[in-house]
Each structure stands twice: as structure tokens, then as C-alpha cells.
């Protein structure tokens, strides 16, 4: 084919056109790049979102797995023993020739033990928190707060060991009983163990009370102590209630320390100085060598304990929500 001659004008126009085309292409490319980058960013965003979701689901999955497992393995024994006989039976003799599976002693012991720990632990913890939040100097506050944190970090087996070697012989000597391992020893240990959670949470609640409330009360002529107990504490009452519930949760779920000081005989808790067994220790003390219906019954006890803890958690959520409002 014969090549066509271009006039200079045409030549110019073509060059211009080419340039224009090039820049257009460039612009389109750039836009495409940008778009793909945006696309890419969208994808990474999505991937990260999925990873986070999966990680979150692991937690949920664990809870579900534990719940389902507990229910599945806890129900058969209850069905075989009978719910009433199981919950309200006063005798537990899992390995006897004619086994008896009544967990009322464990339930009552757990309730009494927790209540005892609260009765001793809450006043001490609450007053300590008021002191630290309102009255103590900065130096005292920082020292005592780190001591409280340390108390929270001590492993429960250490509480148990100290209880076993110091508290139990001490109770035996002071109260002149044949053996110190008892409900009372467990209550003391639990009361000390729940102190940190009560103190910390109460301090947080008290610190959050607006300064103006107190100033107003002081300006009206109330003494500082009157102000703290009649203004600050009522203003922080949901937080304080939540701290008590948290303490209850900690006390009812504790196994190791209690196992070392309570004596672990499945007696009905008729007296403070009796050897008793808690719900937690009932599971942990017999699990190692258990088999058959005995093992299933232990799972049922765990299920009962689990329900207790759920109840406590629900109460805690209730108080925390109210505090927010």
C-alpha cells in the first residue's frame, strides 16, 4: 500500500493527538492503579476483618464447647440419680457398695462458705477502699495499692499452703478443737482471697464520683467522713455492689486453696469447725480416679457450679449496666 503524505499541519495535529492519547492512557492507567489499590485495600480490610472475627469466634466457640460439653456429660447422671435425689440428697458416698449421690452438703457448704467470706471480706475490703480512695495520702495510697495488686497475683495454691501450715494448726490451738481443717478455715482463706477484687473495684467506683458532689456537701458544713459515707458511697453504690458480686464469683469458684484447708469430708455443714466439701472440691478431689456413674455425677456437680457462676455473672452484668446508666 502506498504511504500517504501528511501535510505539516496534519503532522502537527497527529502529534498533538498522540500526546493527548498518551496522557489519556496514562490517566486511565493511573485511575486503574488507584482503583486496584482501593480494591486491594478493600480486600485487606475484609481479610483483617475475617481474622478478627475468627479470633473472636474462638472465644465464643470455647464457651459454647464447654457449655455443650458440660450439659451433655452432666445430664445423664442427673437423669439416672433423679434431680431431687441429686440436688437434695444429704449423703454422698460415691464409691460405697451402695453408692449415694446427694450433693446438698456441697451446695450448702459452697453457699455458707461464700457467705462467710463475704461477711468477713466485704467490710474489710470496703473500708480499706474508702480509706485508700478518700483519706490516704498519695504515698500511702500507692504503697497499699501495689500491695493489694500483689495479693491479687498470689496463686491460690500458695494461699492453700499457707492456710494448711499456719491457719489450720492455728485454729486447732486457738479454738482447742481436735483438727483445724474446717469450714471456718476455708472462710478465712476465701475472705482474704476476695479482698483484692473488692478493694480494687470499690476504689474505681469511689474515684469516679464527681468531685463537685463532695465539695457541695463539704460546703454545706458536713464533715469529710459524713461526706464520704453519705454522699460518695451512695453515689458509687452500683460499683460497690458489683465488687461484692465479683467477690462472690471468685469465692464460689475457688478450688485449690479450699481443698487444702477444708478437710474435704462430705459432711453437712452443721458447724463452723466441721470438715466440709465444696462444690469445686467435690469435682476436683474425686475426678482423678473416678469412673462410670461417679464420674458422670462429678460432671453434674460441675454443671450445677456452672449454673451458679452464670447466675452470679448475670447479677454482675445487671449492676455494671446500672452503673453505666
Amino acid at each position, binding site marked *: 500500500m502506498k504511504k500517504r503524505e501528511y501535510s505539516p499541519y496534519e503532522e502537527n495535529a497527529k502529534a498533538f493527538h498522540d500526546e493527548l492519547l498518551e496522557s489519556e492512557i496514562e490517566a486511565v492507567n493511573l485511575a486503574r492503579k488507584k482503583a486496584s489499590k482501593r480494591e486491594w485495600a478493600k480486600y485487606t480490610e475484609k481479610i483483617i476483618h475475617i481474622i478478627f*472475627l*475468627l479470633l473472636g*469466634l*474462638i472465644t*465464643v*466457640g470455647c464457651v*459454647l*464447647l464447654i457449655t*455443650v460439653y458440660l450439659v451433655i456429660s452432666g445430664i445423664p447422671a442427673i437423669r439416672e440419680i433423679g434431680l431431687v435425689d441429686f440436688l437434695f440428697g444429704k449423703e454422698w*458416698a*460415691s*464409691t*460405697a*457398695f451402695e453408692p449415694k449421690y446427694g450433693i446438698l452438703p456441697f451446695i450448702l457448704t459452697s453457699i455458707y462458705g461464700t457467705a462467710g467470706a463475704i461477711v468477713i471480706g466485704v467490710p474489710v475490703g470496703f473500708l480499706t477502699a474508702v480509706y485508700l480512695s478518700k483519706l490516704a495520702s498519695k504515698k500511702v495510697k500507692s504503697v497499699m495499692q501495689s500491695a493489694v495488686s500483689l495479693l491479687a497475683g498470689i496463686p491460690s495454691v500458695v494461699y492453700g499452703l499457707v492456710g*494448711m*501450715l499456719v491457719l*489450720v*494448726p492455728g485454729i*486447732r490451738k486457738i479454738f482447742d478443737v*481436735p*483438727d*483445724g*481443717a474446717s469450714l471456718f478455715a476455708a472462710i478465712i482463706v476465701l475472705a482474704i482471697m476476695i479482698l483484692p477484687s473488692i478493694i480494687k473495684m470499690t476504689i474505681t467506683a469511689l474515684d469516679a464520683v464527681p468531685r463537685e458532689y463532695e465539695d457541695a456537701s463539704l460546703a454545706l458544713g458536713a464533715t469529710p467522713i459524713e461526706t464520704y459515707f453519705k454522699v460518695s458511697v451512695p453515689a458509687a453504690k452500683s460499683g460497690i455492689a458489683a465488687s461484692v458480686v465479683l467477690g462472690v464469683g471468685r469465692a464460689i469458684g475457688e478450688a485449690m486453696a479450699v*481443698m*487444702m484447708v477444708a*478437710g*474435704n*469430708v462430705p459432711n453437712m455443714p452443721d458447724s463452723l469447725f466441721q*470438715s466440709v*466439701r465444696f462444690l469445686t472440691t467435690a469435682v*476436683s*478431689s*474425686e475426678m*482423678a*480416679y*473416678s*469412673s462410670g456413674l*461417679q464420674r458422670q455425677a462429678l460432671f453434674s456437680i460441675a454443671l450445677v457450679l456452672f449454673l451458679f457462676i452464670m447466675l452470679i455473672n448475670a447479677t454482675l452484668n445487671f449492676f455494671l449496666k446500672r452503673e453505666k446508666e
Partner: protein
Amino acid sequence: MKKMITMMIVGVLAISMLAGCGKEKGSVTTDGSTSMEKVIGALGEAFQNDTGISFTYNPTGSGSGIKAVQEGRCDIGLSSRDLKAEEKEAGLSGTVLAYDGIAIIINPENPVSDLSLETIAKIYTGEITNWSEVGGNDAEIVLIGREAGSGTRDGFESITDTEDACKYRQELTSTGDVITTVSQNPGAIGYASVASVKDSVKAVTVDGVAATEENIKNGSYVVQRPFVLVTKTDTPLSDAALKFFTYITSADANEIISAAGVVPAN
């Protein structure tokens, strides 16, 4: 969607539990005494590591173990008591693997040093409640025992014939806890396997015989029971089972047996 992911996680976890099953090179099945769990478990594990033959143990109790051998449901039965005459007549033979000696321990401050088996039983059933009744100080006896299901408790109660009748003051979950508690309380009495007794407590002589390895082996110390391997007299063992039998009754296994807290018989 969320439900499906959760289900998948549950599924994966469930499947991973099944991993590790599978057999090769034959297998040995044992069935019987729950008290022998520790010693037979340790031996089985060592045997499995050395030979690659898989080993299973079914903790059902001495009676069911003996029955299982008789009916051919397992290779070796495990019994924590001697075979009865009628069981031997029924074509079973027993080989003692080890002796489980149980020491009766009291606080070192306690002046009592000897108790008869009968007295021990009376103490644990609550018939005797004060040390002065057995020649000690005027102090209440505090009974320390093990948790239900423990082999030591089962052994002690079956030897002293106090099953389900013991009036414990404390039920502890380990030998160490029993020893510590007895060492802390001058009025306490407890029991623990002979191998684990420490100086912080005093082991009493029973009917005048001390709880030594020798006395346990020759049978003069009575708070003991044999751990018996039960096999059929006329049916030979399978190759794998025979290997296991020779392995655990050889002198080489003694170290493992002692480590499990019992006295090896061979």
C-alpha cells in the same frame, strides 16, 4: 454463617480428639484393679515406648478384671487381691507383680508406737476415739484419709475391713498432703504408701512388725496386698501379651515399679 463457623470449629476440635488412635504391631489389653492404675500405667507406657506395641488398660476393678480374663475379653487381668481357690480351679493363675505396702503414720510427738490391725480398724470406724485408749496421751484421734476412689484408700479399707465405715476427719487428695497434715497435728493418724513415708511423720509398727520392704515381701507386715497379674493357665498368651508379661516381671521393670510407690516382687 456465624453458626456455620462455630459448628466448624467445634467439628475440628472434636476430630482432633480422635487423632492418635490406630494400632500396629499387635496389642496388649489389660483389665482390672483401679488401684494398679499408677503402676500398670507407668509400665505400659515404658513398654509402648520400647517396643511400639500398643497397650490398653481398662480400670474396672479386680473382680471384673478376673472375669474379663476368664471370658477372654482381655490378655491379662489385674487384681489387687490374691486369687481365690475357686478362681484357680476355674483355670486361672496369678503372678504377683508387686506388693502394695501401706504405712500407718502418726505425728512424731505421739508416744504410741505399735498398733494391732484390729485396733487400727476400731480407730478408723470410730470405736476408739481417744489416744489414751491405746496407750497414748489424752487427745482426740484425728483420722486423716484419702479421697474416694484412691487406690491407697481402697487398699487400706479392704485390708482393715473397714470399707465405707471410716469416719474421716479429713479426706485429702495426695499422699504428700496426708503426710504434711499428720506432721502438723499431734493427734492425727493417717495412711500412705510405704515408699513415700518421710521423716516428718512416724510409721507405727503393726502387730510389732515394722513397715519395711523386706517385711512386706515376706508377708509379716500385714497392712499390704499383692498386685496380681491374672492369666489363663491352659491358654498361652499372644506374642505381644507374652512380651509384655516378661517385660514387666523382669528385674529391669523394678525401677518403674518402685517409682510407682509399690514394692516389686521379682
